């Protein structure tokens, strides 16, 4: 875990007067699970959008495996091995879950075959295998627009995983997932990612998830990184608790003097 897979330096991006990124410096280490926490509007999604080429920073650089990727298109960046999932799941709504994942498999293997079916045995098997690992086999044949929020979230991540990225950026993977299922689902997800040796960055609002699964946590605040380190340390920091966690987690639970 000594090598930086992704290195962001001095990222700045403003929307009108809003500074969504105000000098972001961050190294994502190979193999780590890095959580991003922070209040609404802090710029967490903006960071993912910049890293995946959807938004271009006004200033600063992003390097992946030592190579500058700032300004590349989303298409070029995903080809380099960076995939993402979305805060609002982006599924092909008229397709089944299996077709959605198979399309991602096909996207990786080469889409330009006009006559062989999408669900040819190799693509279908791989899609089914991924769905099985995510525990989604039961809904493989459901249309994407008929799923509940939690299933859509997982299918969305499954599509990203089907691209076989080395770096996966997940925007609130557990939002919308029922509280009772959350830990099991994250556990499944983490196992899938560890098996595939994927480095992961995930935006997360649930501090229990962060504490349990993140190697490091970065605290976003008004376009800046306010704190960065192991969860035990960062989450115990009174300033972090006041500014970020206070609004998301029951404050008395952690406060030592309560």
């Amino acid at each position, binding site marked *: 875990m000594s090598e930086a897979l992704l290195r962001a330096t001095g990222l700045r991006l403003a929307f009108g007067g809003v500074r969504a990124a105000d000098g972001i410096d961050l190294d994502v280490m190979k193999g780590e699970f890095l959580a991003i926490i922070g209040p609404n509007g802090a710029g967490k999604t903006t960071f993912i959008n910049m890293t995946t080429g959807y938004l271009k920073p006004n200033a600063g650089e992003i390097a992946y495996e030592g190579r500058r990727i700032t300004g590349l298109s989303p298409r070029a960046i*995903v080809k380099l091995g960076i995939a993402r999932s979305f805060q609002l799941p982006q599924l*092909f709504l008229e397709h089944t879950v299996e077709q959605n994942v198979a*399309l991602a498999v096909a*996207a990786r293997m080469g889409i330009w075959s006009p006559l062989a079916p999408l669900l040819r045995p190799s693509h279908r098997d791989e899609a089914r295998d991924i769905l099985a690992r995510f525990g989604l086999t039961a809904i493989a044949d459901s249309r994407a627009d008929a799923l509940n929020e939690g299933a859509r979230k997982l299918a969305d991540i499954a599509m990203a995983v089907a691209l076989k990225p080395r770096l996966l950026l997940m925007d609130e993977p557990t939002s919308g997932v029922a509280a009772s299922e959350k830990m099991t689902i994250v556990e499944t997800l983490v196992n899938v990612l560890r098996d595939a040796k994927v480095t992961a960055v995930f935006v997360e609002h649930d501090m229990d998830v962060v504490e349990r699964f993140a190697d490091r946590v970065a605290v976003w605040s008004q376009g800046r990184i306010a704190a960065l380190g192991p969860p035990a340390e960062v989450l115990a920091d009174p300033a972090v608790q006041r500014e970020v966690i206070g609004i998301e987690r029951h404050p008395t639970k952690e406060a030592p003097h309560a």
Partner: protein
Amino acid sequence: MKRIEPILALALAGAIIAAAVAAPWLRFVLTIALAKGIAVMGILLLLRAGQVSFGHALYIAFGAYTVAFLAPRVGDAVVLLPLAALGAGALGLLIGLFVTRYRQIFFGMLNLAMSMVFYSLLEKLYHFTKGSDGIRVEIMPVAGQALDRIAYEWTIFGIALGLAFALGLLLRLYLASPMGEALAGIKTRETRLEFMGVPARGVLLSAYVLSAMVGGLGGALIALTSRHVTPLLAYWTSSGELVFIAILGGAGGVLGPFLGATAYELIRVYAAASFADAWQMILGASLLLVILFAPGGVWGMAARAVGGRGR
């Protein structure tokens, strides 16, 4: 449903052949219907991506005029058909590079604009095109065989039917392929495609070029059948007709365009014969009924009758 589609196709082909044998004047109508059905497959392809072209008569006219222009030099239908398809495909690539940057109403209207430009060129360049008088196409040999009128008409009918089958089959494969499914992805989540490394515009452009090619082929068949081409082929009402047929037939399956085109041409001929002034009203009413009561089109109705889903 997918499995009985070929059986339905054979049944439809059988019915078309029987009708053409029974009533020689229907042979003409049905050849035109097959030609339009082939062109409408291109509309169906774009509909898959959620895009409606209101200008695809451009490619029909291009294919038809290709035949009219080249017939005196290359007097063989078997050579002219692929030339028309390739020419229309090249034009489709040129125009497609521009129009596939746009979506929805802009896509539709830009196609319309292109077809109107082509229409006025056909009208205005009288020296080449004989303007609104149009150009006659003489009966020509097919694969080196000189034919009399009846044999020629049967041959073109047979070619149209064969092409309809072959292209229908290819389209069916295409729609189920990654390229076809990605095309459908453009309709619901175009940006996701980009985040998967798939160039959405390239996917749409490929489909657009194919749609132009089948348009050109349909147009060539129309020229070979009606043996007279005029700028009206490119007029916006002709483009509207293609969309009309696509909706009438239903966008759910490859048979839709052919069911739609056959229904359209038959309604038109019978309505025009029986109620000379009201045939447009009858066509309009049929479309209205289809949209209100059978949004899956004739294909959807057929599918439901057989007890499956249209898709």
